[in-house]
């Protein structure tokens, strides 16, 4: 049985099902991170003292990671634009770069976490570190999830382009929406945790 509205647009909404699905999923993600941001505000405003992020965390590394993640968002959207121009080779290069930049982000995060653990700073040390590890850890899981999906569309999933290019372009667009959301979350996490 063929799945309806994978490519063709529904008459009532003007959207295909995948587009509605990914946006509903992203809405639930907003609430997930929203709950953690609310917890952060509650813990911070309730604490008698709160350290500035830059006294504990490594701002240059986080700035570098911000640049990496923003760059990966650009390569992601360029990958989609390449497919829209029917340049599959260019798509592969941009999608590969997106995955690679996601990997760089994780490696930098690994060094950041390792340094904290080596200096005896754990989630149990204080509330600041507890919320820092929770928020960045959850964000990191999202980066990993996004990388896994992108790697699938770079590798085995790319076969679909030969048989049904429109469907493949839609899928890449939707995985791109998730990837940009991950970038968007980091845009707020960076100043909140590192600079304030």
């Amino acid at each position, binding site marked *: 049985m063929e799945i309806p509205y994978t490519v063709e647009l529904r008459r009532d909404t*003007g959207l295909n099902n995948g587009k509605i699905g990914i946006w509903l999923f992203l809405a639930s993600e907003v609430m997930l991170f929203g709950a953690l941001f609310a917890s952060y*505000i509650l813990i911070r405003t309730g604490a008698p003292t709160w350290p500035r992020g830059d006294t504990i965390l490594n701002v240059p590394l986080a*700035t570098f990671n*911000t640049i990496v993640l923003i760059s990966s968002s650009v390569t992601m959207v360029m990958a989609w634009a390449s497919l829209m121009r029917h340049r599959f080779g260019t798509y592969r290069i941009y999608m590969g770069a997106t995955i690679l930049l996601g990997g760089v982000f994780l490696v930098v995060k690994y060094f950041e976490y390792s340094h904290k653990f080596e200096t005896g700073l754990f989630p149990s040390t204080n509330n600041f570190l507890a919320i820092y590890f929770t928020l960045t850890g959850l964000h990191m899981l999202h980066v990993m999830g996004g990388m896994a999906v992108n790697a699938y569309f770079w590798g085995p999933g790319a076969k679909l382009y030969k048989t049904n290019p429109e469907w493949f372009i839609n899928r890449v667009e939707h995985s791109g929406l998730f990837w940009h959301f991950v970038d968007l979350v980091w845009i707020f996490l960076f*100043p909140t945790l590192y600079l*304030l």
Partner: protein
Amino acid sequence: MTTDHAVDIDKQVRIYITVFVSLMALTIITVAISRFHLPIHLAVTVALFVAIIKGSLVACYFMHLIAEKKLIYAVLALTAFFFAALLALPVITHSDGFWIHGLH
């Protein structure tokens, strides 16, 4: 692929690059401002203001929200409402239950 379609994508690519440069500039501005060690209320306001601009650029142009269908806007409006309510909870708690219990 029609010529019009190709021109349209080329135009979009130019926008993506402009947005990328703007995001980089705003990231540098965010870090630079934090070096001034402003009072916390001002620092939070400025940092969130810049983050909202950056987030809007990503959402509008990379996620194509600037030209999306009404249903998506409706979903996001509902999300924004509940997100705001969620963030208001700590504020209510911080004001010592004033909005819940009133003045005593």
